[in-house]
């Protein structure tokens, strides 16, 4: 299984976890988001209505969109704030919108956006800092529901070696 590691932390803080994850995958790539200068979503909806599938913000995020489609699974390394992921991670997730179309359909009794690509995304979260793990698990489940994908769960960084046992 090929693995994308998306690191939103300073590189030295993530080094050990990155090493653990790459050792468990035959084919992996690490993207450090710091140099990509990722901006928050501005809610313009251009990725749905004007330039379908493409974000209007000209920063490094396009590289991530392409990578999500290329790898079998993606693990995000994130900091925390207020018992949740920090804004760097939330900004990345807010900008997943181009992976969905504006069209909606009903899945298991709830409205969902129709996925843009035929891809079963598998995303997991490794977080560094204090957070409510049960809530992060719930949130990741909901995020992936919106993408028609599967959450690999949320794990504290110190469990990097044994995290995501069913995937890695």
């Amino acid at each position, binding site marked *: 299984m090929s693995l994308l590691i998306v690191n939103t932390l300073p590189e030295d803080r993530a080094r050990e976890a990155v090493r653990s994850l790459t050792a468990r995958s035959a084919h992996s790539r690490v993207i450090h988001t710091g140099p990509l200068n990722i901006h*928050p*979503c*501005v*809610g*313009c909806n*251009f990725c*749905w*209505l*004007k*330039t*379908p*599938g*493409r974000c209007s913000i000209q920063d490094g995020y396009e590289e991530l*969109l*392409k990578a999500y*489609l*290329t790898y079998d699974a993606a693990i995000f390394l994130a900091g925390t*704030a*207020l*018992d*949740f992921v*920090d*804004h760097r991670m*939330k*900004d990345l*997730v*807010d900008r*997943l919108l181009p992976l969905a*179309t*504006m*069209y*909606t*359909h*009903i899945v298991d*009794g*709830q*409205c969902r956006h*129709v996925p*843009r*690509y*035929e*891809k079963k995304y598998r995303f997991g979260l490794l977080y560094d800092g204090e957070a*409510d793990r049960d*809530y992060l698990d*719930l*949130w990741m489940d*909901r*995020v992936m529901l*919106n993408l028609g994908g599967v959450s690999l769960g949320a794990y504290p960084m110190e469990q990097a070696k044994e995290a995501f046992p069913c995937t890695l």
Partner: protein
Amino acid sequence: MHLVIINGAARPQSRSNTAKIIAAFRMGYEESGSTSEVWHLSDRAQWAGAAQAFAASDNILIALPLYVENVPGILLEFLAGLEPKTTPGTQIAFLVQGGFPEASQSRCCEKYLEKLPELLGCAYAGTLIKGDMFGLRLMDEKEGQELLRPFTRMGRHFADTHRFEKETVAAFAGPEYLSAKECRMFRLFGRPVQRLFMGRMAKKLGCTGPLDARPYSTGN
């Protein structure tokens, strides 16, 4: 009673559905003599003022669009930069608006908001939820007013009670899930209706390709 309102939407004020909802809410809130002020986080020049207002006020409402099951990244960034209060007496209420019609879509976010005030040294005063708001900025004034009128009513209610009680919110939020009949209708007519209306919106914006284009397709 004075209310500090923080608009956590990322979209600029002039195009923000949340800003329109706040304006309607304030009309009701101020009818009986209460006062309010609004800070828009989409304008970073307002962040310092918003932080000062947060520190100085004991009655705060944070309004936000639902962004991928929680608060928008910019609101999270702002809140994480605040100094938590050390003396009790401040309450925070929330107003969450989303695009999907069902209230159940906002419950994951609500669960987080229930504990957020405590992390900021404040008390929780409830979350008002409303879905089906995506089209607000595309409506003409009359249609928009119709959609916004319930928020004016809730502004009046909040001026009286200073909180959003669960029962009031449930009645206001609308259906928790779509009914079986609505789901059937949606399956029958949803796609062609969407293609028509979204196609028109896209054309107005200058879109020339299909809305389900796959610019980064890898053959998946």
